């Protein structure tokens, strides 16, 4: 058995080696993220977190998010050490409110891992029925080509797809928008969307990713998650192209969109 190398002349040499020992990779899988692996990079990001600003701005694409998720996903940083570090940055009077959202997001990761431990079969199977007025067989098994190639008729959605494919990262709100678009606008099974995300996200985790997809789809929640263009504009401007003329399928009131997306009515 041959010991694999741990020193390389440069990043390109490392990438070539990874390709050489990964024969299952598709030939057209060519993107590499600027996000670098390793403990040093993870600790560097940890030292820059601002949990108070995060609490105020996290829902906006330009918000003070931490980018720690790939490092937490693979145990490069422990949830415990990230929490301990964040506590040091909180108010000294013991008021937890300003850092509550940051700590709660760490808790979501702990929660999903606990669910995974208890019910590994939930990762790829519907936990509950869809509440969208549709049966599982009404959803396509595969991702449409215009989605995988970022050629849909919605510019904001194409921007999210391209960002996912080139950087290996998507802001949480953009993940929700793209997941809802795939499942509800395109009526594709959440499993196909989950596979697409796992193939590209550096932080993609079977539990967090797939159970969140099920939350969007309504197979692990009380109702389907969807959004309208007004909401997307509020949180995604100016990063994503949000003009109505370029995103007509997303435009409308929530009632209008519900009637369009779920013509059989939403159950609970």
């Amino acid at each position, binding site marked *: *058995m041959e*010991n*694999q190398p*741990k*020193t390389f002349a440069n990043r390109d040499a*490392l*990438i070539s*080696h*990874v*390709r050489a*020992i*990964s024969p*299952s*990779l598709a030939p057209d*899988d*060519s*993107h*590499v*993220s600027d*996000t*670098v*692996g*390793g*403990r*040093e990079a993870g600790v560097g990001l940890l030292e820059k977190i601002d949990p108070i600003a995060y609490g105020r701005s996290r829902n906006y694409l330009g918000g003070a998010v931490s980018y720690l998720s*790939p490092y937490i996903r*693979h*145990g*490069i*940083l*422990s*949830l*415990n050490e990230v*929490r*301990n570090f964040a*506590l040091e940055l909180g108010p000294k009077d013991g008021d*937890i409110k300003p850092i509550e959202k940051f*700590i*709660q997001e*760490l*808790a979501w*990761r*702990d*929660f999903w*891992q*606990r*669910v*995974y*431990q*208890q019910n*590994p079969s939930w990762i790829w199977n519907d936990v509950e029925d869809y509440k969208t007025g549709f049966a599982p067989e009404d959803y396509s098994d595969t991702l449409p080509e215009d989605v995988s190639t970022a050629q849909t008729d919605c510019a904001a959605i194409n921007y999210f797809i391209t960002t996912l494919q080139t950087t*290996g990262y998507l802001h949480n709100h953009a993940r929700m928008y793209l997941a809802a678009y795939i499942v509800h606008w395109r009526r594709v099974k959440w499993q196909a969307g989950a*596979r697409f995300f*796992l*193939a*590209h*996200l*550096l932080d*993609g985790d*079977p539990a967090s990713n797939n159970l969140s997809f099920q939350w969007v789809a309504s197979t692990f929640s009380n109702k389907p998650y969807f959004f309208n263009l007004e909401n997307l504009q509020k949180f995604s401007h100016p990063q994503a192209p949000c003009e109505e003329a370029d995103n007509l399928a997303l435009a409308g009131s929530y009632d209008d969109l519900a009637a369009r997306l779920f013509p059989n009515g939403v159950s609970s």
Partner: protein
Amino acid sequence: MSTFIWLHEEALRATHPLFLPPANPEQSVFIWDDAYMDAMEYGLKRRVFLYETLLDLPVEIYAGDTLETLKKLAEATRASHIRTAATPNPRLGQIMDALSSTLTVERVADEAFVNLPEQDNLRRFFKYWNKAKRLAFQPNGGR
């Protein structure tokens, strides 16, 4: 009677309790398993991120089927004991179960986020959060 550490993709740091004393391993290894990564849906981006992470870790990297490679390494080093990180990942759990037929497999838990026992029928976040919240705001989760 020797021990070796099998580091897998869910626990990629040298400060994981896996490496803490009394661990005094003969060898620490990571298995680069193409078929496993394909089953996990990992593309080039993720694989590069993982390989970069391995560079500074105190492990030797071997390419091959995880179970077969670990068995061969155990045989070559006459190891009877494997230490690895506990994980809910069932693919890794199955490999640990298969190794257990011939070796002692010790599954070492990571530092807990909150010192909270397992809750039955965990389904909705707020059922968990209502119990976890008080501990989540304490250093080391109330340990």
